[in-house]
């Protein structure tokens, strides 16, 4: 087990190196020289040279890459260009609000996705099944923007059931007051694709031999689906949830933007708007690392869910 983890971590190194080089090339080569931007409107030669020296972009490329590697290794990406706030502080303080929305959202989405997919599997091939699938296709076709705009207008602005925007100090207040409508919208947006996907996972299992065996020995359909099928369908579901978690951190940026939640996704949007390269660089590197780690965690979870899976 430990040997497996070490080998997997070892295999991540070339990928991580590639991500670092890609991000470096994008920002230092495609992105061009930011010193004119930073020096402001009344820039003179000396000020620009000074900024270039501070950022290290007057150095050869390999020295610049070395600076970037040092930043990654020390978890210190310097200060944000637009606000001067240390990038490490930005990320640490924005993670909490993001997770306040994402953890409940992921739990609810997975729970409802599994429950509905299994319920639909009972009536597979029926008119209900087909109607639900068409409804899912239509639901997926409506832009997430429309869900957010309409829900925010109707439930928060018109009916006043939720605050239109805002974020508080305490976790309880945030979770029960400010994060509630974003979570509901996130659920409304994600339930259609999730249900479609999980239904296909479940339907892959219901034709297997073990299901026929279970039926032959007289188990109830309910027990077959909820115990036998669910445990086997759990593997692709775990992959899906784990692989999506880091992407969701960024993917919730629209929710965070509309509802004024000071999270990671909103920070990325602000950084892109302000050309704040250090913030985007840091978030990209961290999210890529998180994606790889979560993929490893998903593989480790397989072993826990399914004793047949041998991690070598």
């Amino acid at each position: 087990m430990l040997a497996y983890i070490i080998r997997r971590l070892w295999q991540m190194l070339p990928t991580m190196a590639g991500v670092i080089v890609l991000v470096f090339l994008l920002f230092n080569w495609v992105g061009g020289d930011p010193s004119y931007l930073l020096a402001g409107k009344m820039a003179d030669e000396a000020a620009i040279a000074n900024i270039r020296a501070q950022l290290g972009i007057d150095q050869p490329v390999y020295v610049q890459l070395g600076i970037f590697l040092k930043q990654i290794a020390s978890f210190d990406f310097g200060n944000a260009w637009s606000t001067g706030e240390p990038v490490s502080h930005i990320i640490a303080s924005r993670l909490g609000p993001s997770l306040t929305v994402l953890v409940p959202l992921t739990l609810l989405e997975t729970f409802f996705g599994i429950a509905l997919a299994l319920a639909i599997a009972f009536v597979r091939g029926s008119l209900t099944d087909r109607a639900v699938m068409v409804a899912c296709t239509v639901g997926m076709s409506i832009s997430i923007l429309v869900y957010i705009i309409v829900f925010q207008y109707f439930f928060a602005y018109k009916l006043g059931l939720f605050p239109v925007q805002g974020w508080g100090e305490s976790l309880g207040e945030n979770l029960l007051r400010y994060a509630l409508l974003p979570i509901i919208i996130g659920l409304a947006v994600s339930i259609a694709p999730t249900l479609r996907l999980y239904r296909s996972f479940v339907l892959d299992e219901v034709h297997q031999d073990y299901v026929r065996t279970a039926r032959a020995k007289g188990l109830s359909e309910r027990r077959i689906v909820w115990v036998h099928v669910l445990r086997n369908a759990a593997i692709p579901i775990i992959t899906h949830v784990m692989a999506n978690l880091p992407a969701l951190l960024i993917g919730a940026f629209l929710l965070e933007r509309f509802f004024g939640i000071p999270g990671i996704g909103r920070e990325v949007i602000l950084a892109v708007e302000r050309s704040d390269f250090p913030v985007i660089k840091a978030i990209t590197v961290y999210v890529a690392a998180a994606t790889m780690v979560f993929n490893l965690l998903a593989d480790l979870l397989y072993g826990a869910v399914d004793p047949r899976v041998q991690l070598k």
Partner: protein
Amino acid sequence: MHGNMIKRESISPGLWTLAWRRLRADRVAMAALAVVGAFLLLLVLSASGLAAGDWEDEVAVNYAPPGFMGPDAATAALARPQAPVPPNAFDPLAAELDVLKAEVRATHPPHAKALTLPFGADKWGHDILKKTVKGGETSIVVGLVAAFVAVGLGTLFGALSGFFGGVVDDLFNWFYSIFTSIPSILMILTVAAVLQQKGVMTIVLILGLTGWTGPYRLIRAEYIKHKAREYVMAADAIGASNWRKMFSHIFPNVSHVALVQLSILVVGFIKAEVILSFLGFGVPVGTVSWGSMLNEAQNELILGKWWQLAAAAGAMALLVTAFSLFTDALRDALDPKLK
């Protein structure tokens, strides 16, 4: 169906003939294809200037409501001609201004602005229906071209990787693992931040250059499967070059995978373009797309002017639903094993 089985065909039907037959039997797929076809027709008409070329004319009063709602008392007041400003005896430019005003009146005669339009008007009095057609042109063209770029790159990389294997395969797999470890939306935003210039071309490049990973994986698997088949060995025996084997011999046999990927990506990219343009990282100012319409509509909704939102959202939902249903049917028709 039974009749077909009995009738012996002199030439056995190919993959595409069979797929088309299966598709034609599917009524949902044909309805979806009709809707997609109608959108593409509108796109061609609008791109050639035959339809919605005059969408920028201010034909109605600001925020004119849709015809079925009747004129709005508040906006109707805007349609009345403005009372002339009383002459100012101290204005030193009065004589010159009068000349200019007369000139403007002669070249641009004031035309009556409509109080209602079939589906209302936006802030400047543009016809929403025409604006939706024009916005659809941008969104669909971006989706189509970006999907072609992404599938083209994915096919090229997948073909090289699967056909040659070895070091080439390792190299492209390394690229693949790099691109998939950065979530696509973050990748898109990062490239948008770096490129710093808005334009339809930029957004096509952003989406195309970041979207090749899905087609790559599938095409690579197909090439690994096909390169050992007998027809490829036969091509090898008659001295076909690697390039010829890859693209004249193998590609026609795996092109259905590329086609399905293409239609999946078109849907994804239309949605992505709408979000990017909404955020202001997409189409430039002055170009209308469904995303920029939604951006305007967000503020209009608070004023109670819902029609622009409904038009853009409805048109997009209709197209994407039809395209998705058609894609599902196309996949089933091209790969009957999947069912």
